[in-house]
């Protein structure tokens, strides 16, 4: 059980895909202008990651090594298309807000990286916890960044106005604001990491 817990928490801070591994950044900067986008993108990504890792872990012995990359892409692309179609059908508003970034999950390095380095070598039980850890790690960062950007950039949280329009800072809704907040989160993660690692060492 402890093994699974550490697999899960691994993705949250220590090996957080965005803040520590620093992969899959484009979409995270592009869609994090509102919390709803952040949640939607995070969930879509987590779903694709989880399903792809499960399928590839299950079939890992049936995938010839020399064509593993094309097979991974087929699997990832299929799940991405499924997510895209479902979002268009059931959450059209969200799908419109995300635009091209949902189809672009296909080329998100996080998924390819986890599938290649983890799912293709491990059993399904470990893989599920890894995928969930990475997915939640991705999602919390997205939601965190978009919370800051939506609050400061638009003065709202999940669409509810908290700050009057006159004090909102347009910079945070723009791409440079995204980079700025992202940088802050990297340092936040570094702090968290050192705290957790110290705790571990003290034990």
């Amino acid at each position: 059980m402890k093994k699974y817990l550490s697999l899960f928490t691994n993705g949250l801070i220590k090996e957080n895909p965005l803040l520590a591994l620093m992969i899959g950044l484009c979409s995270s900067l592009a869609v994090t202008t509102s919390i709803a986008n952040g949640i939607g993108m995070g969930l879509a990504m987590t779903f694709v990651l989880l399903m792809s890792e499960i399928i590839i872990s299950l079939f890992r012995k049936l995938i010839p090594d020399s064509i593993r990359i094309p097979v991974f892409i087929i699997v990832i692309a299929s799940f991405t298309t499924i997510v895209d179609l479902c979002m268009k059908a059931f959450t059209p508003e969200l799908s419109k807000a995300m635009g091209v970034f949902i189809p672009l999950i296909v080329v998100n390095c996080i998924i390819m990286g986890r599938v290649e380095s983890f799912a293709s070598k491990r059993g399904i039980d470990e893989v599920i916890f890894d995928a969930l850890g990475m997915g939640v790690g991705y999602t919390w960062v997205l939601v965190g960044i978009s919370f800051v950007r939506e609050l400061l950039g638009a003065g709202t949280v999940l669409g509810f106005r908290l700050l009057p329009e006159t004090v909102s800072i347009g910079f945070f809704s723009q791409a440079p604001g995204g980079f700025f907040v992202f940088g802050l989160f990297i340092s936040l993660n570094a702090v968290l990491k050192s705290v957790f690692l110290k705790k571990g060492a003290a034990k």
Partner: protein
Amino acid sequence: MGEAREEGEGRKMKTMFKLSLTLAAYAVVACVGLAFVYNATAPIIEASAANEVKGALKVLFPEASDFTDVSSEFGGPSGSIGFDRAFVAVSGDAPIGMIVQATGPTYKSSTLLVAVNMNRTVTKVQFTANTDTPGLGTKTAESPFIDQFFGKKTDDEFKTGADVTAISGATISSKAVAAIIKAAAWQAGDYLAKNHGAAAGSGSAPVVAELAPFTLEAGLAELFPECSFEQLPSDAIANSVERSVVLSEAWLARSSDGSAAGVGIVAKGQTYKASTLLVGVLPDATLAGLRVLATTDSANYGKEMLSPDFYSLFAGKSVADAYLVKPSVPEGDIDSISGATISTQGVANMLKIAAYEGSRYLRSAHGGKAASFAEDPFILNVIPEQE
């Protein structure tokens, strides 16, 4: 040795075959899965897209209960204005009007939804896209400009200065938007009258003159009617004045008795972008006229040189005239196309050079009349540098 290699190749083939089959198998499974998901979601996606359109239409026709898409049977484009989509608004079973989405050139381009009721009255107009200058042309989408169209009859004139008040500083946008609304509203009224027994209108479809350049043959035939043409050798008429204008071709027009009726000269040069003109010069040192063969200038501005209102101004003008454009030269003799001084200046310069060279040729080769030029015939318009 040879056998071993053969065996190796055979194994290689086998592996390749096996790998392709494996990949194909994965692809097939994925496709089947996707096909199921697609089939399940496609109708929902379609329905939500249709609902979204209807929601937008409902804003224009709140009293309608449903909208029928009649885009495919609606009339084709009217000149430069295209009709993208058309919907008949229905309340219960009875049609109560229609909405047409029309796109046309304004300062840049605009797309509008125009709602017309059964009495051929415009009830509402809404922009869906407007790429004009923010703060000027985009004001056409706002009140009070847009409000003046509500309640207008489709047979009204829709003319700026007459029954439409233009936005100051955005006359071109205002004029063009009025033309788009008129075209869409008239077509909608016509469609309703023909298909749903709505009030019939008077007048004919608004003609949005599509400005098209002349071909060389058509231009020559208009400038020199009932003449035969022969091309002059390229050195017969050349530009000896101003290097930036090229006189690329010259055609001698002969009337039926064989005498020289004039020359048509093809001049290429810079206007706002670039234009090719056909200048007709008569032996009496006046112009037979001007026709535009090609221009890449901006729509609604320099492109207006394609309009008969502009090019027909020059027939009968003396080749010795000044060809200076007002208001840059206050005492000039050519009125600028509104908002397109640079284009007009370019045309005027080309015109002057071609006229000068053409009359010089006619005088020396065919006994044409000498023009009495001012001391310096070549004061040209100074075209300001473009940003």
